[in-house]
């Protein structure tokens, strides 16, 4: 009862305003084609520096939910997903818009996003404390093995090539080693640079890798002719009533469970969640032949699952401190900037904060419904803002945001250098999210490996004999073998087709 009272007290007007602002800005950023949810959260991260913990996290959660939901606007009106999670939305929403039912598609997507997000918030509240109570039994060996498993899952699932995935994940892990060694104080890879004494700025990595690299990707193609974006008559067709959405309650529930389940698996993300939910919806629908031609069920399945993915992705993040994908890696960065280390201990020592995060996520979903429902005309107009105004504005926001944390210009130059690295990694198909995930997991892996070896008198044996630790390591190996087998099969299939 005391925790409940304390949690309620966290939500003053400033916190509510921060969640609202995060949701609003998240929808705007998500509605801009090419900007991912991770980039939206990364761009807003510097704003949390001056806020108290729950207001800052609420702002970021609002941005995460808003960006995923906002991604449906260009998916419907331009047949161009705003975020990867909206890919499956284009399958039916774009044909609906082409047939003069854009208003209905937008309304369905808003309502389904809200319901999917709310269901996943409930799943998060129920499942997280259970996982955290199990994770409290983990020691250094288990944490080391878990971080290796997390990294292996991400490099196996997120990219096409295991070699490329490993390179990117290891680059992130390498970044975590820079700075003064925590045990001996020895300088590691600082090259005499005083700004690196306390390690690489997490914000510079996050903003450089996710935001600046995306700006450079846009700049590279600037000279190419692009298809004209006609968004006139965007809201033709009546908005649906909530009753109409709730008529698909079975589909909503199924898609939300798929979304939350997929979101909880590190590396999976919104695009896999929405495509899986869409596929299942098509399989079980009586109107399966209508899918791909403008079936409202397709929009409901995709949008409810991609927003449910958010709640799912928060489960490993909060309970184990393991980021599931890019946006949760940025969220962990946000928590760390506030001096909070996510993991099972958080449930034990700062239960009020954990419940505050749950409530903030639920509120972000509710606010997302109202903001998007009433502001949809404004968000449609966002699509008309020309890139030559947007790109410089985003760059300034990145530069000043990164500078604001330590008032150090070195961090800004580092952000730009990492942006260039991120550009080439993205451009040549390496992917960028594993860099930030590797950076967070690298610290966890090294700290726990060293702590474990000290505890076990320098012996490696317990890492391979303790049941949970060895299970994680075997699973990591299984993911590697699975990934190698998949790429070998793909190569064989290509050889046959050639």
């Amino acid at each position, binding site marked *: 009862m005391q925790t409940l009272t304390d949690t309620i007290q966290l939500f003053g007007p400033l916190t509510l305003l921060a969640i609202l602002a995060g949701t609003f800005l998240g929808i705007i950023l998500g509605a801009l084609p090419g900007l991912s949810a991770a980039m939206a959260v990364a761009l807003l991260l*510097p704003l949390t*520096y*001056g806020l108290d913990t729950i207001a800052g996290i609420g702002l970021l959660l609002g941005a995460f939910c808003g960006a995923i939901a906002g991604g449906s606007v260009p998916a419907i009106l331009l047949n161009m997903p705003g975020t990867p999670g909206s890919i499956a939305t284009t399958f039916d929403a774009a044909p609906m818009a082409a047939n003069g039912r854009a208003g209905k598609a937008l309304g369905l997507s808003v309502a389904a996003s809200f319901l999917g997000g709310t269901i996943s918030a409930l799943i998060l509240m129920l499942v997280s404390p259970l996982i955290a109570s199990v994770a409290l039994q983990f020691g250094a060996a288990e944490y080391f093995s878990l971080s290796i498993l997390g990294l292996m899952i991400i490099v196996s699932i997120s990219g096409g*090539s295991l*070699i*490329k995935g*490993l*390179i990117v994940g*290891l*680059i992130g*892990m*390498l970044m975590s*080693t820079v700075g003064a*060694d925590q*045990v*001996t*104080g*020895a*300088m*590691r*890879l600082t*090259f005499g640079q005083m700004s690196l004494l306390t390690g690489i700025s997490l914000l510079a990595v996050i903003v450089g890798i996710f935001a600046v690299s995306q*700006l*450079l990707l846009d*700049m*590279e*193609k*600037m*000279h*190419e*002719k*692009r298809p004209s974006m006609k968004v006139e008559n965007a809201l033709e067709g009546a908005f649906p009533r909530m009753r109409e959405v709730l008529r698909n309650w079975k589909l909503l529930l199924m898609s939300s469970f798929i979304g939350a389940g997929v979101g909880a698996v590190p590396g999976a993300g919104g695009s896999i969640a929405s495509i899986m939910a869409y596929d299942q919806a098509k399989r079980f629908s009586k109107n399966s032949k209508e899918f791909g031609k403008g079936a409202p069920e397709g929009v409901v399945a995709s949008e409810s699952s991609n927003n449910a993915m958010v709640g799912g992705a928060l489960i490993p993040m909060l309970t184990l401190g393991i980021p599931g994908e890019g946006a949760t890696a940025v969220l962990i960065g946000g928590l760390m900037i506030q001096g909070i280390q996510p993991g099972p201990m958080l449930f034990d020592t700062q239960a009020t904060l954990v419940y505050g995060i749950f409530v903030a996520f639920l509120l972000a979903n509710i606010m997302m419904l109202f903001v998007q429902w009433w502001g949809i005309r404004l968000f449609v107009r966002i699509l008309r803002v*020309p*890139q*030559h*105004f947007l*790109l*410089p504005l985003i*760059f*300034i926001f990145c*530069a*000043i*945001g990164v*500078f*604001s944390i330590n*008032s150090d*210009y070195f961090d800004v130059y580092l952000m*730009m250098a990492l942006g*260039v690295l991120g550009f*080439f990694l993205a*451009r*040549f*198909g390496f992917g960028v999210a594993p860099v930030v995930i590797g950076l967070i997991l*690298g610290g966890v892996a090294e700290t726990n*490996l*060293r702590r474990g*070896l*000290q505890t076990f*008198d*320098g012996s490696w044996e317990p890492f391979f004999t303790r049941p949970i630790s060895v299970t994680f390591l075997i699973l990591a190996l299984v993911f590697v073998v699975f990934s190698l087998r998949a790429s070998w099969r793909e190569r064989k299939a290509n050889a046959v087709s050639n």
Partner: protein
Amino acid sequence: MKGHLQEAVFSLLLALVAAFLCVSAMDIPGGAHGSIAPATFPSVITFIIALLAILNVIACILKGKKANNLPAISRQGFLNLALFIVLSTAYVWVISMAGFLVSTFLYLLLMPPFICLISTDRKGHVAKPAFWARVTVFALLGTGIIYGVFVELLKVRF
């Protein structure tokens, strides 16, 4: 240069940087103290990155286009990137010399016409007086809003 060759060159650069960092990491002082030495983690990681990057170079060369079907970065693409990076780096440098207001206003005034000039379908905008009026209003408003958020609200000092 074709896409897979560009990727091979990038991977080779990665391997060289990783090898350099590996050698640097080996010089990190400090003993193991019953665990692993501070040099171990960075040395092992950089060694594996160098090895994997070389494997990727070989894969790119042996498999050719099959290794990477992404289109190559064109000369114009490289030029766009270089100009954007130079202008943006200059902006950050000018902030440290001339302060936030002047540099941000100038950056917001110069970048939109620059982006229009390099984009095929927007070149014509630059010749129109209305475009310059819009850009000036945008630069003034943008500078004001960012100043309000970061300097007044978040108390960032330059």
